[in-house]
């Protein structure tokens, strides 16, 4: 069951690990032990885009972030992502993103980046797995200051859960999760794209410097939040498709058992709760705003 969801996910993961290498259909089909024809057909069916275009769009999106975040020469970036020349890279970049790489590098503005797809999501597919707690790592708790910042993203005060949030966004507003994520990821932010909760609703966006102007579509909310102390419950990197439920449960358990009063703090709701979620690289963290309890002696 869901064999091809898994196989296509494997292809996606292989592509992701080889964005700066030559990823060919032959290599992918060899890994999967299926014919090239079958692999490419299944990929198109599950991802909704041809394998060739998927690889190219992912490479172009990675190249965009490389332009934004490094000072590497453009010709080196072009070669790194498999273009035959700087001109070929510039021409493709301009046609796909509507702005030349030169202009984007000088003044990075939101681009519709093409983000990694996920075809094997156990939660969405209704797959229940036995959680192997033996491999669980420890949830670490620490207190940090999150400075004054601007939140740019979507807010829906009518829902409080991630999947309900996206169901409404996609059905009511026609906003696709991948498209929104692509735009948000193209903006350099403190912690990448985050989820979270604010005033009872669900939020999805990025944290950026409070005094910077970003020209994004009107449906993105822009809110400046003041500096605040946060308690961070952090679980280290894990395999998303395998351990997401386990991590969610462990974080939830830790949050419930951790009492801020014991440490001289209390939760507050002037700032949002952030959920940082980059399973393979950072792990997952729930960041809850706290403040010191006034008049507490010795505390």
């Amino acid at each position, binding site marked *: 069951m869901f064999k091809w969801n898994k196989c296509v996910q494997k292809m996606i993961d292989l592509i992701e690990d080889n964005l700066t290498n030559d990823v060919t259909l032959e290599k992918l089909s060899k890994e999967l032990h299926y014919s090239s024809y079958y692999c490419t057909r299944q990929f198109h069916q599950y991802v909704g885009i041809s394998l060739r275009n998927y690889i190219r*769009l992912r490479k172009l999106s990675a190249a965009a972030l490389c332009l934004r975040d490094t000072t590497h020469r453009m010709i080196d970036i072009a070669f790194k992502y498999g273009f035959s020349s700087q001109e070929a890279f510039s*021409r493709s970049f301009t046609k796909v993103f509507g702005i030349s790489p030169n202009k984007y590098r000088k003044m990075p503005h939101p681009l519709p980046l093409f983000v990694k797809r996920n075809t094997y999501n156990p939660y969405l597919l209704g797959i229940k797995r036995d959680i192997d707690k033996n491999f669980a790592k420890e949830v670490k708790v620490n207190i940090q200051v999150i400075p004054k910042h601007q939140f740019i993203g979507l807010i829906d005060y009518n829902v409080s859960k991630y999947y309900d949030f996206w169901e409404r966004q996609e059905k009511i507003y026609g906003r696709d999760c991948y*498209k929104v994520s692509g735009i948000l990821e193209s903006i350099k932010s403190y912690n990448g794209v985050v989820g979270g909760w604010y005033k009872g609703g669900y939020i999805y966006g990025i944290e950026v410097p409070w005094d910077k102007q970003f020209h994004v579509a009107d449906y993105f909310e822009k809110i400046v939040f003041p500096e605040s102390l946060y308690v961070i419950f952090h679980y280290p990197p894990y395999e998303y498709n395998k351990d997401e439920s386990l991590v969610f449960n462990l974080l939830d358990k830790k949050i419930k058992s951790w009492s801020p009063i014991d440490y001289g703090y209390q939760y507050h709701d002037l700032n949002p709760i952030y959920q940082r979620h980059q399973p393979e690289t950072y792990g997952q963290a729930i960041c809850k705003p706290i403040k010191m309890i006034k008049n507490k002696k010795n505390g």
Partner: protein
Amino acid sequence: MNITFQERGCDIIFIISNYDIKYEPVLKMCYFEKEGNSFIKKYNKNIRNIQIIKNNFLNHAEEMFSQLGYFTNIPWEDALLEFIKRVEGKNINWWLTGSCACCIRGIKLNPHDVDIMVDSKDVEKLNELFLDCMVEPLVDTNGWVTKDFGVLFKQARIDIASDPSSILDEPTPIDCGPYARAHLEAVMFKGYKVLVPPLTLSLNVNKKRKRLERVKLIEDFINKNRPL
């Protein structure tokens, strides 16, 4: 503006130096690379007829860049007409895209060049037909968005590209992708039938490039011409 050429290994380099600073953005837009105080572009020196193309470039480059920067008048209608007359009856599949495709419908977009899409099977024929005005060789660029690319200059710049890739239609179809090619509409231009993409696709590409003035002009035109 000085135009010189240099051979380096397998390449021939088109070099532009001593140019007015106003040309810098234009040269960048044309994918020339900065090298010291010059802008350069490399081609394989074994490209057929490269000597003729070099001469054409030498004779027309400054005028072409001047037009591209909107420093002089751009007779794009004459250029398009010249192209149409030359390909007429030659069994070449071609269509017009970019701002000229809107202009011939009556939308005043102020184009700085003419964008022509062709099938790669006709590239050889085009190379022969337009050799006298080819300023950048029409060759396979190993590009991800189109196969061949080349530039003519006949009163105005004419960009020619072949076989648009379906990547151009992700996530939304634009005016030069395979979707456009499959939905061409005929518009009359000076007595000739010219195939152009649907206006909504021109609108998409201008939205994507945040060319808001053009977006407004196209939207106004669509609204005015909407059937009651």
